[in-house]
């Protein structure tokens, strides 16, 4: 069931209706059942994966609770993490790795024939997300941040919570469990905000992302055939497509959770207004994943408390692992994700190395450094660095990505003239207009939340804005079941 399908909203209305009729203390149990139904609706086999991860988590948490010595505690945690992360790695990479092995073997080799028949089942949508949630739960239990297990049912509900099951956010159990442990009872303000978030998320996904997608797909299908203007447009369009696709999903997930009185962690904070790559990854883009890597990988590796060389190594390692985690999300499994992770790691390292210089500039010329012009330039440079990274994320191969970047670099000076003569279609103008609208909204949101602004306006203005949004969904939305990029494993 996709958040953009009619069937999902029938399911949501039914779930809400029963939820409202139940005594608050039993509502979490109903939501656990609804989550299982949601996940198993498209393929009941999905539930086996979720149940497997849940059982490993509960068993490991049980072991951790009974562990008397640090060694047993560490061993129990290592067991749980290796099963969960091992399963994630195996389901993601086994077939690709086996194909590579088979590929290098001689054509007539019997070993090749034998290995060629080895396959693992494809893991279902959302597996990357709930395994990471499961790992964070176990680490938090081991660190004593969560009583192990507070309730097996609550832990299962945390892993299975349907709004975030397929594509996050990777909400922490420390945020989720206390909410579900109390009787769930949504407040009117949260309910209205939830509906607004769902509508805004759908607008980002069905109107912006899915209207940009065909233009991007056409160019990345055979980039060698695309003109420089088409390549440039596809690079910009994809940057906004992936943002609106993923943050649209998150907005809907946050909104649905609010309808049931659950507040999930914020996952996006206007990322393309970042002043630096560090700010982009650390504070604004896929925040729940960045924090996961920070807390469960970067800090345990020593983080920035070690020497400078080790710190850069840690940073690169975290970004490369992040790239590997993204492999399989929407665009297959390939070296492109490794290149994407490494490139962003390199940005981060260079940014960190240059920080003393920026600080010196800020101290020496504070007014110039903080002027609108310089800030805008920093936003634009950061955006373009990130957009270059997205080329690797979206391209089908590293060779394709390099081809796109090389052709853009060699024709960069010709682009203004070429754009002037380019036959823009209605779809191009629609895409450009929607991106401009999004930037304007985000710019306003940066100063004060648009939802807070809306709440302060008279009812007529508030409702008019809502009707406009809904009309845009009906008139411009693409509803032909295009999956969310980030939910494809």
């Amino acid at each position, binding site marked *: 069931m996709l958040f953009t399908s*009619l069937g999902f909203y029938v399911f949501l209305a039914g779930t809400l209706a029963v939820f*409202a009729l139940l005594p608050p203390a039993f509502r979490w149990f109903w939501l656990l059942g609804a989550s299982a139904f949601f996940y198993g609706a498209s393929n009941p086999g999905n539930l086996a994966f979720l149940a497997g991860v849940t059982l490993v988590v509960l068993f490991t948490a049980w072991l951790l609770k009974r562990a008397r010595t640090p060694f047993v505690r560490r061993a129990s945690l290592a067991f749980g993490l290796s099963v969960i992360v091992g399963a994630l790695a195996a389901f993601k990479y086994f077939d690709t790795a086996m194909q590579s092995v088979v590929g290098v073997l001689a054509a007539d080799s019997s070993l090749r024939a034998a290995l060629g028949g080895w396959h693992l089942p494809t893991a279902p949508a959302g597996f990357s997300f709930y395994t990471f949630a499961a790992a964070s739960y176990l680490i938090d239990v081991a660190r004593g941040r969560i009583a192990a297990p507070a309730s097996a049912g609550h832990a299962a509900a945390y892993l299975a919570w349907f709004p975030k099951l397929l594509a996050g956010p990777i909400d922490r159990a420390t945020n989720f469990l206390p909410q579900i442990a109390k009787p769930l009872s*949504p407040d*009117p303000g949260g*309910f*209205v905000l939830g509906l607004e978030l769902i509508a805004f998320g759908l607008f980002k996904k069905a109107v912006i992302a899915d209207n940009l997608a065909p233009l991007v797909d056409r160019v990345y299908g055979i980039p060698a055939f695309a003109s420089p203007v088409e390549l440039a447009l596809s690079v910009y369009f994809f940057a906004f497509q992936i943002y609106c696709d993923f943050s649209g999903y998150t907005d809907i997930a946050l909104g649905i959770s609010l309808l049931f009185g659950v507040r999930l962690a914020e996952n996006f904070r206007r990322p393309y207004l970042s002043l630096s790559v560090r700010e982009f990854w650390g504070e604004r883009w896929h925040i729940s994943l960045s924090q996961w890597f920070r807390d469960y990988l970067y800090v345990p590796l020593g983080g920035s408390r070690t020497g400078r060389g080790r710190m850069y190594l840690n940073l690169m390692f975290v970004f490369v692992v992040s790239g590997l985690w993204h492999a399989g999300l929407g665009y297959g499994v390939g070296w492109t994700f490794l290149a994407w992770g490494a490139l962003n790691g390199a940005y981060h390292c260079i940014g960190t190395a240059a920080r003393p210089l920026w600080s010196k500039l800020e101290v020496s010329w504070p007014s110039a450094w903080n002027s609108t012009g310089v800030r805008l330039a920093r936003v634009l440079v950061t955006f373009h660095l990130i957009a270059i990274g997205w080329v690797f994320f979206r391209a089908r191969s590293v060779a394709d990505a390099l081809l796109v970047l090389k052709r853009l670099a060699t024709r960069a000076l010709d682009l203004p003239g070429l754009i002037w003569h380019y036959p823009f279609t209605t779809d191009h103008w629609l895409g450009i207009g929607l991106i401009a609208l999004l930037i304007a909204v985000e710019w306003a949101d940066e100063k004060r939340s648009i939802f807070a602004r809306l709440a302060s306006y008279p*009812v007529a203005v508030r*409702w008019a804005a*809502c*009707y406009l949004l*809904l*009309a845009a969904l*009906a*008139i411009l*939305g693409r*509803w*032909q079941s295009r999956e969310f990029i980030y939910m494809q494993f």
Partner: protein
Amino acid sequence: MRTLLNPALRFVAIGIVLYGLLGYAAERLTLAVGHSNPIFKILAASEVNYDWVILGASHAMPLDFDGFGARLERETGHRILNLGSLGTGPLYNRFVLDVFLRKHRAGSLLYIVDAFSFRSSAWNEERFSDVKLVRGAPLDRDVASLLLRYVREDGIPAYAALDYLTLFSKINNRDRFAQDTWEGERQFDRIYRPSPAMVRKRIDYLYPEPPNRVISERYLASFEALIDAARQRGMTVTVVRMPLPPDFRRALPDESSFDAELARRLAQRGTPFHDFASALDDPRYFFDTDHLNRQGAEAFLDCCLRPILAPGRPQAVQAR
């Protein structure tokens, strides 16, 4: 939460009114740009009585491209309504015939038959929910009630009826200002250059599933029901296979056994079946892998169609 109830009801009520206005505008646009949709053609038909009604999938459509339908009427001296539509099998065509027979009459039915349309629900039940077909069909009470009957009795998706009744596909139509025409009509004067790759791609598209006797049987039964419905209204029925280029014909999977079964059933019912598949063996008569171009339609009219539509009508009379 109770405090939200009254404002929510007001919000929804105003929303329904606004949606209705959007729907009204979309419906007006549908009527303004309508052209090739069979339901649109029926509802916009100037006559009540016709001599011939033509049904079938896209192979029937060139007979109405770019004024060719008017020429057909002129040359045969008959009133002809061509209701062929893209990718539609017997179930959808039965629905179109039922819509037609609600308010119109015809003496004869010419069914342009294609084996592929008997092989998959993609060309039958699923066609009802194709937004391109739904959005081109103007809202009409009779069509709506028939659609609901098909949902109940023939298992077409309920959301097809929901889409039609809520006008959603019309409001959401990306090509709302463009004439509702199949792109094939714009290529009517083009000449096809044979391409094995194109033929392979086309065959893969037309035959998404391997041959399945149960599925074919279901749609043959639907086809027989269509013929019975036409006969009950006093129509004579003629079934025709259109000419196809030789490379395309050779690539058709399991065609001979289907043809034999179809011919057997039609013979049992005494329904004439004319197989013109190899009547025009030159690619210059086609604008793509399998559709007649203008030259092909003219040649087909001369060689095959005229004796069926207007038997005994001399050429001189036809020309006049």
